[in-house]
């Protein structure tokens, strides 16, 4: 069973068709996905700005992350759920879209970046959280996160267009 046949099967299900052709449900899912993006990625950008030493420098980094993380995770949960629904409704289009594949690769990269950050420099945060200029490794993690998420947003937006 190939990936293409799985996507074709998904596309042909009644639920996928109903969602794709609905007047209100699809826009609601799309809207929620965009709002979730602002909540999750937006707050992630704020925390990355702290990580690179540009925003909210007078507050300890651990306090900034502690305040933002619950809302960020809620936003990611919303995005994941709505993203799954959007994929379910247009599985075949997503399969054929090179930008969707790029988006998934970048999502994976973002996850790896976050994992490396949490396993390394995050564990030593008590040593640098009050510094105006965080250590190079923290700044690198922040910049990578910003660049990767900018790429994810760009790829996601470009999916709507065909070249």
């Amino acid at each position, binding site marked *: 069973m190939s990936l293409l046949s799985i996507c074709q099967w998904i596309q042909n299900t009644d639920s996928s068709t109903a969602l794709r052709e609905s*007047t209100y449900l*699809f*826009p*609601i899912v*799309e*809207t929620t996905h*965009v*709002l979730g*993006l*602002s*909540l999750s*990625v*937006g*707050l992630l*950008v*704020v925390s990355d*700005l702290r990580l690179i030493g540009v*925003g*909210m*420098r*007078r*507050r300890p980094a651990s*306090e900034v992350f502690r*305040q*933002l993380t619950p*809302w960020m995770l809620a936003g990611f949960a919303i995005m994941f759920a709505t993203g799954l629904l959007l994929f379910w409704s247009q599985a075949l289009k997503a399969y054929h879209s090179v930008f969707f594949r790029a988006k998934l690769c970048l999502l994976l990269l973002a996850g790896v970046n976050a994992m490396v950050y949490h396993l390394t420099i995050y564990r030593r945060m008590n040593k640098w959280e009050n510094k105006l200029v965080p250590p190079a490794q923290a700044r690198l993690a922040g910049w990578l996160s910003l660049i990767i998420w*900018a790429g994810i*947003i*760009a790829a996601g*937006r*470009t999916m709507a267009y065909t070249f």
Partner: protein
Amino acid sequence: MFHLFGLTILLATTIVLSLRLLGVMFPQQTFPELASSLMPWNLWSLAVMLCTGFLLFTSEAVKCYGNYSFRAKMVLLFTALLFRFALYPQLTRNWESWRRDYRCCCGFPWDWRDERSVSWDNESGSRVPGLRAAGISGISFHFFHLADVAFAMRRQKQQPLVAIQ
């Protein structure tokens, strides 16, 4: 794309500042201190959104004209901007002890960096009705504005192009 980037940062900073007013986020930090960090990003992302939004409009002006969701979006946007620049400073200003410094901050006329602390800044913010209103309204207007976007996108696909009269 840049419209989306601006939207992400605008809404994120609005959420953080509004939740501070509601006393939910960063309760230990004074509002002027938080605003001094985030307001420049808020205002510049708003500028990016307005510029890119205008360019997007010029590329599809007739289509936008015929789309009622776009008209609703413009009304909501105007309301959000009116709230942001007219009511928001009023609701978050303490007349008694906070002298507002009108020096330009990154090119905009509000300077939120007055550290001569106000009495309400040390409160959580949630006990002041005006601040609660500012917090709730700040989030609501932007969310309703965004909620209209997807409907506009959907209806653009369904509505035929309106002929020029």
